[in-house]
């Protein structure tokens, strides 16, 4: 079995975020870490405070974009960064908890704000080995 993992992929102007996992929920958790890694190194963020997020959308791809945009909103309005995620997906609904802390400019050295997750290169798929992959480009 492959380990859950995240990575960035190439986009000229912005940046692609991708998560992989044994389940759809795990792939969604990993892609959230990939998005945090656009802003700073996730290991710099202490999971001190938890917040709850939920969203729903008619298909898995729109659900991914909604999930990431819900996090963008929480990051922007709470001035927080998140490094640990627990996601459950039931049909069209996602319920999640994210752990993180207030932005500390000196310690986190945040690079860039994320404006939003986009439909560019948007894909959510179960691969032939049964694992899941979720990805899109985020606008920065």
């Amino acid at each position: 079995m492959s380990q859950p993992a995240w990575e960035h992929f190439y986009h000229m102007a912005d940046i692609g975020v991708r998560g992989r996992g044994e389940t759809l929920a795990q792939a969604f958790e990993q892609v959230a870490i990939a998005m945090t890694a656009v802003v700073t190194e996730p290991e710099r963020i202490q999971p001190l405070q938890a917040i709850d997020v939920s969203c729903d959308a008619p298909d898995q791809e729109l659900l991914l974009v909604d999930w990431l945009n819900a996090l963008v909103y929480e990051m922007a309005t709470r001035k927080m960064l998140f490094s640990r995620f627990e996601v459950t997906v039931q049909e069209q609904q996602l319920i999640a908890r994210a752990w993180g802390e207030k932005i500390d400019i000196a310690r986190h050295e945040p690079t860039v704000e994320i404006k939003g997750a986009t439909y560019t290169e948007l894909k959510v798929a179960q691969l032939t080995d049964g694992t899941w992959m979720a990805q899109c480009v985020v606008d920065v």
Partner: protein
Amino acid sequence: MDLNLLTRVADYSWRIEPHGDMRVPAILYADEKLIREMDEKVYEQSCNVAMLPGIVQAAYAMPDAHWGYGFPIGGVAAFDPDEGGVVSAGGVGFDISCGVRTLLTGLRKPDVEARKHALADGLFRDIPAGVGSTGHIHLSQSGMNAMLKGGAKWAVEQGFGWQEDLQRIEEHGCMQGAKPENVSEHAKKRQKDEMGTLGSGNHYLEVQFVASIYNEQIASVYGLQEGDVVVSIHCGSRGLGHQIGTEFLKSMALSAGQHGIRLPDRELACAPINSEVGQNYLGAMRAGINCALANRQIITHLTRQVFARIIPEAELRLLYDVSHNTCKEETHVIDGVKRRLFVHRKGATRAFGPDHPDVPEPLRQVGQPVIIGGSMGTSSYILAGTKESEKQAYSSACHGAGRAMSRHQAKRQWRGRTLIDELAERGILIRSPSLRGVAEEAPGAYKDVSAVVDAADKAGLARKVARLEPMACIKG
């Protein structure tokens, strides 16, 4: 891009013949080198835009076009509401009304050189920039709605800047038709503490000097002389615009089917102008435009305060404020007939020529200033709209250089500290809360803006007036 896919119309203009579901051709403005280097995605996205309902004449791409979201960045397209024409959230972009304004200072380069460090430090201290920064203004609900309705006009009424600034801003600083009630509570909450903040990424405030003048006559009308110092501010509608873009992208994607629109790509999500979603978006997007205008107005006020403290003899008068992510209802003459069209400019600058009624009186005889921001540490340009531009791409020109390298590659190639030291040796001061952000925005990660501007000039989209070089740059 493969030149075999295109028909060369003129030295600086290329055409993609309509094929498949394209309703109109696509026209690309650039020289051969820029076209060769242009992303294949620009071809694909321009063709996709040409498939949208109600598109008029052609889908256009500016010389700095690159891969965007649905529309290419550097894309221009106009739609007729009476022919089922659409409005697209992706065709405007997430950062609604992102744009540039340039302020004259009345100072000469030597006046500023000696006080440059203090000026850079003062600007960096007083103008909030970067991730997580908050402004000095915290809007109540009624204040927020008034701002979204009034734009820069609201800001001036609140004491941010001067009445005379307004005539030097598109729409006289206040976009009509804004509907704050169409802007979600989420979007307003995201903006509550972000008024008067620069943001991050490629946004900046730069103190520049006029390094070259290409057209003396227009430059003198604009008040520009070689050696003059100016200030340019590049930013947009902050969290509010981003949230409006995010929410309407989804509602447009979900409602496209009901409107009988078959999307070649989901990210082209759009709605008929004459539909509830379309009208709701236009009202919200116009409120987003006002937010951007108010934001740049507040930053202007903060900038003036810093100058007043450090170089009291400075007088910062606004040359012009122009946005490059918008959809505007405009009158254009098509085959001799005047038509009201909804012109999307995504990463493209409006460039009205001489005598256009929307160009402020003092500038009207020479055409609207077109401000092309460079990237940190590189040249910027002032151009002027031309009469020919009206016939080319609805009076539009390029907006900037565009990236030549991804953020990831840039971060691997450069270190922020080294870059700052190298630029300081060239006399350019950089102030930023993020060294890693500086690395991602390295001058070498962007295309040569001069080539883009030359192509825009030669294609007749706008005329070159002046080149600006940086002295100090505040990076978000």
